[in-house]
């Protein structure tokens, strides 16, 4: 048998290469800096890395091809996701800079892990092969396990990292089993036909309907594995604990980035490649989405810890975005992309406020400690108000537009009752978002809560995300336009 070496086209994974290179560079540079020196340029270097990645990703806009032995798809969809993830990561770096400043923790390792995680997430978006998906998934998961436990002296942080890791490994096993079943059924892990193989998509076209039972079981396990990453019920149990224990900037990044990357893979896999099998995966996802929306919203109501509250909120949001996926139409695709991009910015902003108030020691994270915040820090409270309203889906915020799009897509696909359930869940969710506002505005506190972090960088992250939340809620046209053009896949 003749072996043909695949053409190595590094341009396809240029953004990922940029991030990994930057990460390695960071570690090397850090080794040469004497103890006790200011390390501001580490954050600058990380920012440059992301900047380069964004430029390289943006350069791929408009292309449509498969590269690296048909394992990586280069298309608008991937570009949209990659750019968003890079933006989330940059904001996280800036936020972390002020968060880490007064600690002895290894700043370079923190950024390096963040860069690795972002690289993994980006790869998820363009993976066109199940093995590549798994690889990308593990790259960012392992980085995140470490980041969650980054507060080495905190027992809570260690515990949550351990839980996240154990359950993550558990989940990866199922995901791998799913890949095995799919391979067993189709003889391939590649998504798209071509290059001598027919790929999963091609297999579905050429085989009879009765031959797909094994494949369907495999797909079920893929849903389980990816459902874990997006924190869908009943695979969500790790979420509140991990979110609570992790350093606050990382929690924000997990909520924004992980969700986007995993849903991106789901969109490519289910809505595009496995579209012919939608009669099989739809009922499962519908059940999962309903459970996720309702359980997330209901359980958030009684949370007393702001980070846990936001964790349940992020569970509920996974359910909302799944309605766009279930719709499996163009509006659903672009709506989901818009939803995740704007949700990411909003949730990053919310965690930025939490970070600013909690600081390195992660104090003042209970809801009660936010009492009268408005009277102490009106701008911070105002920004948090905006984020809460956006998460609740109030008009004039980006959250409203996102919900409008995904529910609209579900209605267009005939799943109006799913949209109704989603709206009911939103109503329940509104309750606890408003509870945060009530605490901030209507309850008085004499302790005088002061932010633990006063850095400009952290505050500017709050400002930027707040501005994005508001502006995208009013001028949503351009971003929707981009999202619509991002539904061009390699197919």
């Amino acid at each position: 048998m003749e072996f043909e070496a695949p053409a190595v086209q590094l341009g396809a994974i240029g953004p990922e290469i940029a991030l990994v290179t930057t990460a390695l560079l960071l570690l090397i540079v850090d080794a040469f800096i004497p103890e006790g020196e200011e390390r501001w340029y580490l954050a600058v270097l990380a920012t440059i890395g992301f900047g380069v990645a964004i430029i390289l990703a943006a350069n791929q806009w408009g292309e449509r091809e498969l590269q690296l032995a048909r394992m990586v798809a280069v298309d608008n969809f991937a570009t949209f996701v990659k750019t968003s993830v890079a933006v989330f990561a940059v904001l996280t770096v800036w936020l972390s800079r002020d968060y880490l400043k007064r600690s002895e923790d290894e700043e370079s390792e923190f950024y390096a892990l963040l860069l690795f995680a972002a690289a993994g997430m980006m790869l998820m978006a363009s993976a066109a092969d199940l093995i590549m998906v798994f690889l990308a998934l593990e790259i960012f998961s392992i980085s995140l396990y470490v980041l969650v436990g980054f507060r080495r002296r905190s027992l809570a942080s260690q515990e949550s990292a351990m839980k996240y890791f154990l359950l993550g490994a558990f989940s990866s096993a199922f995901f791998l089993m799913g890949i095995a079943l799919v391979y067993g059924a189709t003889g391939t892990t590649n998504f798209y036909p071509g290059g001598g193989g027919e790929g999963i998509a091609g297999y579905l076209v050429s085989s009879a309907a009765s031959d797909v039972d094994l494949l369907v079981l495999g797909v079920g396990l893929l849903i389980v594995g990816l459902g874990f990453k997006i924190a869908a019920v009943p695979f969500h149990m790790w979420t509140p604990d991990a979110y609570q224990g992790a350093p606050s900037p990382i929690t924000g990044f997990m909520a924004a980035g992980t969700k986007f990357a995993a849903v991106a893979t789901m969109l490519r896999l289910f809505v595009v490649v496995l579209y012919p099998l939608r009669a099989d995966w739809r009922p499962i996802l519908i059940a999962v989405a309903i459970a996720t929306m309702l359980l997330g919203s209901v359980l958030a109501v009684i949370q007393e810890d702001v980070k846990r509250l936001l964790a349940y909120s992020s569970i509920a949001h996974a359910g909302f975005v799944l309605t766009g996926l279930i719709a499996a139409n163009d509006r659903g695709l672009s709506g989901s992309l818009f939803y995740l991009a704007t949700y990411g910015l909003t949730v990053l902003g919310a965690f930025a406020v939490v970070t600013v108030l909690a600081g390195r020691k992660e104090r003042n994270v209970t809801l009660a400690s936010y009492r009268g915040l408005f009277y102490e820090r009106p701008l911070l409270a105002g920004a948090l108000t905006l984020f809460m309203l956006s998460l609740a889906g109030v008009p004039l915020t980006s959250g409203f537009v996102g919900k409008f799009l995904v529910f609209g897509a579900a209605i267009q696909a005939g799943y109006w009752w799913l949209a109704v359930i989603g709206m009911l869940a939103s109503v329940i969710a509104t309750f606890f978002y408003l509870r945060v506002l009530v605490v901030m505005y209507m309850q008085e506190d004499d302790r005088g809560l002061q932010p633990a972090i006063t850095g400009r960088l952290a505050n500017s992250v709050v400002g930027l995300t707040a501005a994005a939340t508001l502006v995208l809620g009013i001028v949503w046209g351009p971003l929707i336009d981009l999202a619509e053009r991002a539904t061009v896949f390699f197919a």
Partner: protein
Amino acid sequence: MTSGDFGQLAPLIIALPLLGALALFFFGRRIGTAAGTVASATIGAAFVIGVVTFFELLGHEHGHRSSVVELWEWVAAGSFRVGVDLLIDELSMVMVLVVTGVGTLIHVYSIGYMHDDPRYPTFFAYLNLFAASMLLLVLAENVLLLYVGWEGVGLCSYLLIGFWFERPAAANAAKKAFIVNRIGDLSFLIGILVLTTTVGALSVGQINAEAGAISAGMATVAALLLFGGATGKSAQIPLYVWLPDAMEGPTPVSALIHAATMVTAGVYMVARLSPVFEASSGDLALTIVAWVGAATALFAAVMACAENDIKRVLAYSTISQLGYMFLAHGVHAYSAGIFHLATHAFFKALMFLGAGAVMHALAGETDLRKMGGLRRVMPVVGWTFAAGWLAISGVIPFAGFFSKDAILASAWADGEYGLWAVGVLTALLTAFYMSRLYFSVFEGDLVVPEGVHVHDAPVTMATALVPLGVLSVVGGVLNLPGVLTLEHFLEPAVGESHVPEGLIPWVLAGLALFVAALGIGLGWRLYARRDGEARRRAWQRRVPWLVTGARNKFYVDEYYGGLVVGPAKRTATFFADVFDTRVIDGVANGAGWVVARSAAGLRKMQTGYVRNYGLVYLFGVVLVFSLLIMKAVR
């Protein structure tokens, strides 16, 4: 319609005051006393850009002076699309110049007037926000955007009337203005919806182009609903009641919002959408517009004669003059209406600012009867006010003469002799009550409250008064036959207007002058001469019912209170105390209770043990598999 040929700077006209407002909201405390300068600079810059754009517009040929500047797509729902588009044409630019020009002067005036106020930056933030909303209103290319501006000015009006909210009268006046305006706004909104469903578009250009194709009945309904909105914002019968009370706000606010600009929003809107009004069957809509305007003009003028509060006299006068503008619209003379809008903006803003200067000098005194002879101690205020007085009275060659004459001549030309007669009668009353005001305040013996040292207006205030005074004198040249013709200029935007020909206009003008002289003479006899007191008594004895009625504002507030407010309050009380607390709260609390209980139950799953989490996960996997297998078996 040509699209986007020029006016690319127009978005800045709105953006600048808006930015000013935002800056003052967020950094007002830091900006401090510079707030007035910042606010004046933004609106001044908007004025400059307005002038530039206006010249750009003049550079195009007559009939091609319309441009749509598309900013971004705002709403996209299926095939229904609404953009944030600005319409730059003759009509909107005249409005922009009036709003920014008068607005700038009043901003400058406010620097002096408000300088002691503790919430000085907030005041200018509101003023700037108002200017931005008003400019959005006049530049909007679709009615939805126009509505945004419409509500924006309403909000600012509320905030500014109630600026001194610690005074109950101001707080109540603000509420009254807001609620009465809401009634009009609702009518306006329904009108917009009717238009949208019949025309299928929100664009002003499209609505106007397709208005002729709407059925006459539907057009009448739409036009009257729109006019309902105009009666609220432009203070016409039956919704005028908020305007006199609005005088509780700071005087520059009264000048800018409740005399020169915001109250003209309705007048502008009717002119903007005039094809809809024209499409009404048998001119029904326009006839109603004209008669409501005429009735308001007369009714308000009568009340102005009996009012003793200097600002309220001016408020009634404003209502009356706005009535004139609607009268003009009603006889198809839109350009005459807009002409009067512009001149009125000059002289009424001037007189309000003059009144403000008087109050400023007299420690807040507003009663006419406690003033007198002030022209000698406040020459700048006195002389400029005199210019305003002669302008509104319709004395040649002051601005008001030309615009009022254009309206009356148009009414005559349209064959509406009844309307013309009401207009002439109102002109008589106008000349009379304004003379009464002027003579009481500025002529005769010097009367000032005790212990008050009277001084003329400070520099910033005078800076605003003088240009307005000049404009009140010469504003008439805007439409002087043979020199400049606003009517001809506005034609492409609002249509042609008809004026009588031959000898008739000269006769009508002569008559108007005679009436003005009569009114002024009467005012002089009763209020300027020392024996006026006795004569006044004699007049009052002749028509006691009219005097008592006018003094009590014809009990309109009381009727509204009994017929509308009372029942509404009782209904609201029922819903608030009975329906809401028992039914609605019951359902809401019940639902909350259910959610909280189920959450308390579900949270027990979150034990914190990884083994339990894994179990739940496994349960999920089993569930997924059973779903799939069940489906496969079936």
